[in-house]
């Protein structure tokens, strides 16, 4: 036991050694465990983008990027260990890709002065930067997603869905419960009926939920799933011959992994999208040249162009752009986590900027401010084409119903501020 501790101490000291001069970014990945099929493309996308910036541009304005990767296995306890192990290395921003972990990190990063970016997940009310000074969830959040799904259904039905039934199949966890409140409020506004069908972790057993769907025949099914739950749900939907175009998943139920197991039966399945799909972008040529052909691709290098790889890429791109913004604001290239926070709070993504990066039309335009850490709530709907084997966006980026979501965010963040004793304000 003592020997173990001594060895661990030596190992930790060795860890503290590497140079602190670089800009350090962290990848809290889960390449192992039940969610590995999703965790691998997410981690590869981030790692490859950072490699590309280093190889092609020599870093961000001349500052090399140092990436520390830590394996969480989607486990909160390992996530704590990872956070504590890496924060001493001057990590500029954390992206845990787990709502549970995000909840846990929110008070910690705030105390340590490190920004946390939860892209399309995490605590929705973190959008209110007056309460959550170090947490960012741009470009869109779960409540935006719920609203996008409902507005898409409205579009399809010519603007009237009163009397229709919408069922929500959700992962019975913090993540899955997030949209319920918004969907209830939207139900009051648009007059549809909402049925809630929780699925317990990990989601392999959904027979009873889909039996209920078969019996009650809801007009639409929304899904907040993750990992194996998505595949099972799509397969079950196919089994009861639920019309796939009436089945809409959140952006975490929108990857190739989720639809491919059901084969042709998943054709027409819809899912929300935070960013564009596919690999038809100038940036991919650079990726091929500087990363893949140079043999520097992360992992097996076989994930390029998948939805979740693109999400990893998008996350890393937003982090790098925020770092550039921070460099400009503070007039120094060697930025600290506190400067990074300012950069994230002043981040503005425009079409011209994305085109300049080789990703034209990749994501929505948005602007972050102290009052609004969550972007403008734009999202699109994508649809799976089983024959072609690819996703495509079928709508433009539309804005969520801010009249409904705005008050909910203020209410929830005020409750958090009261519980945690935070004085609201912008500094």
């Amino acid at each position: 036991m003592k020997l173990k501790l001594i060895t661990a101490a030596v190992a930790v000291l060795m860890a503290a050694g590497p140079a602190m001069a670089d800009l350090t970014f962290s990848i809290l990945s889960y390449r192992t465990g039940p969610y590995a099929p999703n965790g691998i493309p997410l981690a590869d996308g981030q790692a490859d983008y950072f490699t590309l910036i280093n190889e092609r541009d020599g870093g961000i304005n001349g500052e090399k990027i140092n990436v520390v990767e830590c394996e969480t296995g989607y486990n909160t306890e390992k996530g704590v260990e990872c956070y504590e192990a890496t924060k001493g290395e001057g990590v500029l921003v954390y992206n845990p890709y787990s709502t549970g972990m995000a909840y846990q990190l929110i008070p910690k990063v705030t105390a340590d002065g490190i920004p946390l970016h939860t892209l399309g997940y995490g605590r929705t009310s973190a959008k209110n930067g007056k309460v959550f000074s170090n947490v960012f969830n741009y470009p869109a959040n779960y409540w935006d997603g719920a609203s996008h799904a409902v507005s898409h259904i409205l579009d399809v039905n010519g603007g009237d869905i009163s009397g229709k039934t919408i069922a929500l199949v959700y992962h019975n966890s913090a993540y899955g419960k997030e949209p319920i409140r918004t969907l209830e409020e939207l139900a009051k506004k648009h007059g549809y009926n909402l049925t809630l069908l929780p699925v317990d972790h990990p989601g392999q057993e959904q027979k009873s939920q889909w039996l209920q769907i078969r019996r009650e025949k809801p007009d639409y099914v929304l899904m907040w799933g993750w990992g194996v739950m998505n595949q099972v749900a799509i397969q079950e939907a196919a089994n009861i011959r639920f019309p796939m175009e009436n089945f809409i998943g959140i952006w975490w139920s929108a990857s190739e992994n989720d639809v491919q197991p059901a084969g042709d039966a998943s054709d027409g399945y819809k899912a929300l999208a935070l960013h564009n799909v596919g690999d038809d972008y100038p940036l991919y040529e650079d990726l091929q040249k500087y990363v893949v052909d140079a043999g520097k691709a992360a992992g097996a290098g076989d994930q390029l162009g998948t939805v979740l790889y693109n999400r990893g890429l998008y996350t890393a791109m937003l982090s790098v752009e925020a770092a550039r913004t921070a460099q400009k604001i503070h007039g120094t290239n060697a930025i600290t986590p506190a400067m990074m926070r300012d950069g994230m709070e002043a981040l503005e993504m425009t079409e011209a900027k994305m085109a300049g990066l080789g990703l034209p039309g990749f994501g929505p335009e948005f602007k972050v401010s102290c009052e609004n850490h969550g972007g403008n709530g734009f999202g699109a709907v994508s649809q799976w084409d089983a024959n072609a084997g690819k996703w495509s966006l079928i709508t433009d980026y539309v804005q969520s119903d801010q009249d409904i979501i705005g008050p909910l965010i203020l209410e929830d963040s005020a409750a958090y501020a009261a519980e945690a004793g935070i004085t609201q304000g912008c500094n």
Partner: protein
Amino acid sequence: MFYREAGDFKTSYAEDNQTFPIKFDRYRYYVVLVLAFAVVPFIINDYWVNAVFLPFLIYSIAAIGLNILVGYCGQVSLGSGGFMAVGAYACYKLMTSFPDVNIAIHVMLAGAITAAVGVLFGLPSLRIKGFYLAVATLAAQFFLVWLFNRVPWFYNYSASGQISAPERTVFGIPVTGAETAPWAAYLFCLVFAVASALIARNLTRGMIGRKWMAIRDMDIAAEIIGVNPLKAKLSAFAVSSFFIGIAGALFFAIYLGAIEVGEAFGINKSFLLLFMVIIGGLGSIFGSFAGAAFLVLLPVLLKNLLVVGLEWPTDLATHLEFIIVGGLIILFLVAEPHGLAQLWRVAKEKLRLWPFPH
């Protein structure tokens, strides 16, 4: 040579019955206590507390609790994850309902509430034995997790069902929440761990512990010699759940700070605790600590060696970690089916004779 009974004369029953009858052992124990209370708090940082000491101490308390039930009383339980959840949610409800009461009292009350719940789910043990009891306690595991997910009152109607520990202080020093100093969180858990170990040790070598062991070894014989199985079994469930509840409360309030019941207290947690007890040694307080250390610290150590030391890819290191820990478990259990505690006992026997074994 140094580790021997010879020359260490005992002149009273109290001395004769003490936990560490050998002088060397006793001093070693005092040194460990002094180190733990007076030296470690000054040298630890966030990483050591959150990645090493807190999980070790908290899992030790839980393992002590489960060891009382499984190791001393012989009632196999797979409900420990659920009982930890009861402790965590009880602590959360108490913390938010009575913010002015000291958190230490809340943690103990959470233990008491868990004890009550444990007794309730221990009732079937009067009729069911062995593997069948394990399956019956599995019901507790699933029911409790379902309950905390289903009834919004338990998580104060928050939108996501997550519970988060607000800041609470002991003597004006925060021990929960993000502003907690590493040493404060460590000391708070250490006090509970040491107290739990002391109470458990003294319970198990007293009358009540002997009743538990009689039930474990042969319940019919125990009944014939006058042990009331109802009282013995239910008291084992109560005491065991009390410690597990305290561990759950600390796990939530001090260690993680925010918890989602399905992820934190799932069936995996029950298995993990059971493995700790089996690997550490059934029916041994030291074994509870050893088992917790083995299953909590070894993965962290391996991770640091493989990823940080040798700079291997993180996924490869994690897979290797599973292989190594799994292999070691098999190796230990083949070499010593009675766990790490028995290895320790054998080592001590050898030490007594060293260096002249004949």
